[in-house]
């Protein structure tokens, strides 16, 4: 596997990049902060069994103009990547986003529009050489309109719909699209929030996601229990959803 990871310096992306490098994959990191990228590249290289060099390049989901050069750099370093993983994204609580339209706008743009633009750029590259795997982190928050995550959830619902459509449209042509739906995972992003039941750890999520990539599964919940939790939530009638707090 020759993987490009956007967001591999933090949280679940960091865990994923480490495990991927640790099992011998060639890894290339994309992110917004040069110093942070360097540190994570060293970390991944130290975990690589044959001490592979791990390259990195600047790429900012707020700036779609940065995508092409970043993917060029990754292509060159890896000799043509076959897997693209996107874990980057923005988060805000419902209260924070309602109170701050600047932040809301940035979140909707980054999580939906720009993530899709990035995926399109990655998709065309991989399809030109016969296909590959596109694995993108959406969220359980996109499965159903819910009171505590109306705005964040909407951005992820749109992303999930895109990823599902992409998988239907291009699977036969060789492009596998994987939509990862993490529940609450204890990372820097959720630090300070009260963990609900079934909160997961980034390392466990990462091994599940790598398994899904290997088996080419189109959709995966992590931790696994969230598949059942969301199944129940999706089945709930509207009048019930209106009354409950989640």
């Amino acid at each position, binding site marked *: 596997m020759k993987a490009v990871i956007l967001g591999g310096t933090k949280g679940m992306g960091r865990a994923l990049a480490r495990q991927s490098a640790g099992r011998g994959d060639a890894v290339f990191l994309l992110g917004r902060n040069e110093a942070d990228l360097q540190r994570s590249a060293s970390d991944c290289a130290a975990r690589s069994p044959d001490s592979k060099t791990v390259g990195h390049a600047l790429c900012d989901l707020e700036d779609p103009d940065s995508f092409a050069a970043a993917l060029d750099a990754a292509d060159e370093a890896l000799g043509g990547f076959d897997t693209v993983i996107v874990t980057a994204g923005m988060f805000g609580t419902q209260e924070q986003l309602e109170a701050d339209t600047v932040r809301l706008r940035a979140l909707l743009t980054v999580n939906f529009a720009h993530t899709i633009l990035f995926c399109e750029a990655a998709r065309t590259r991989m399809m030109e050489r016969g296909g590959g795997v596109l694995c993108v982190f959406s969220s359980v928050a996109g499965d159903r309109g819910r009171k505590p995550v109306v705005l964040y959830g909407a951005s992820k619902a749109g992303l999930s719909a895109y990823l599902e459509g992409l998988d239907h449209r291009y699977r036969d042509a060789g492009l596998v699209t994987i939509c990862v739906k993490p529940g609450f995972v204890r990372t820097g992003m*959720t630090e300070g929030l009260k963990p609900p039941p079934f909160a997961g750890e980034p390392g466990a999520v990462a091994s599940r996601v790598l398994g899904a990539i290997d088996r080419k599964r189109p959709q995966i919940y992590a931790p696994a229990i969230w598949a059942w939790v969301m199944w129940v939530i999706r089945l709930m009638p509207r009048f019930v959803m209106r009354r409950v707090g989640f």
Partner: protein
Amino acid sequence: MLGSASMDTPSVPPKALAKRESAIAEPAPDRTDVGEIGGWGRVMQPGREVRDENLERLTRDAVLCRGLGRSYGDSSLPPPGVSDVAGTTLADRVLSFDPQTLSLRAEAGLSLRELLRVFFPRGYFVPVTPGTTFVTLGGMVASDVHGKNHHCAGTFGEHVTALKMRVADGSIVECTPEVHSDLFWATVGGMGLTGHILEVEFTMVKVPSPWIYMESERVPNIDAYMTGLAQAAEQWPMTMGWIDCLSSGDNLGRGILMRGRWATPQEAPESFPEPKKRPGVPFVFPQFALNPLSVKLFNEAFYRKHLRKQASGITHPEAFFWPLDAILDWNRIYGPKGFTQYQCVLPKSAGPQAARRFLELLSTLGGASFLCVIKDCGAEGRGLLSFPMDGISIALDIPVRDDTQQLVDKLNEHVIDDGGRIYLTKDNYTRPEHFAAMEPRLEAFMEVRKRWDPKLRFRSAQSVRIFGDPVG
């Protein structure tokens, strides 16, 4: 040097970093309420751990860092009037490793467990390991931990070559045994009170195999134990043992003595020792579960389990170095009130009977404890508050009861008379006047501390309790 990155790349200046942060994500989320926080002994106080992957950002206003919270008492708890401690565990990246020089540099929140998971299968080990892998590198420096090889290898601090720290004026400095050596040696064993440790650089060791050759011996009493320990130290790189401190009379201090070394490639199994599955303690035991009878039965069983007088062979490194890591959350067995560990070192000058006198005192005071660990220590380290010194170290767990303070006081008075001292990392009860009487180096430590932190910004619940640091 691994990877394309270099460790001496200048980090992004704080101002630039702050600007980047405002653009996307990473808002300071609404914090959860201040809950309760405790050390490994589970004696709780109000407080909260706040974590961040970026230690430079996290430590800007923090008064104390906390790693995995394995210090037993109040070393990693916020001082009264302060709610938050900076949790370092998300800052856990390996920054460089050079297989030639064996020099490794990592962020301070990296756990020993994760470090060994990556490097042990490749034949590298840490020069010194404490009795658990659930510790961070920052914690290992702050406590200047020691292990079964102390009589040969010294403390962990002896193998540290550089520390990157945030000091009280807000700046970030690199200190080594040569550069800012006063800060360096005050930080080694300094309980996090000289500044925030951001990165740790130290020298790993290469091991001949990942397995341990161990000999263990059942010894009938404390005198035989001490003789055996001294003999073993001359020939073996690793020694330690367990004592049944409830036994008395002729059996006083009967126990199991262990000595070990790394197995040679010839005697070691070909396979790597697979990590052991860990059962956990799923709930806090009720108070009555731990009583003199249950403890006595446990100790008896532990002694009898060692059927033959002597046993030897190849042992799993986890069972040898970190037996208690096999039981997740074992601290819950001490019940809702928690427990404390009393660990002291008695110097050689206290004479060969020092351990016996300590155990006799303990049995008259009736401090019901599981097995107690006795090990001989080598020379004192260079860390200004480093715990070990040439002599013997005794450690025992004490469940918290109404008279725990008096028990610790009496033990401390005895230790002071013998010229010994206690280990701050384990402590929750020592009085300031007792600590001052034990610690002739305290003045030197405080001098360096005040040189770098005149207003005593860096504090813990423990430093307020023992050093009289300001509250709030």
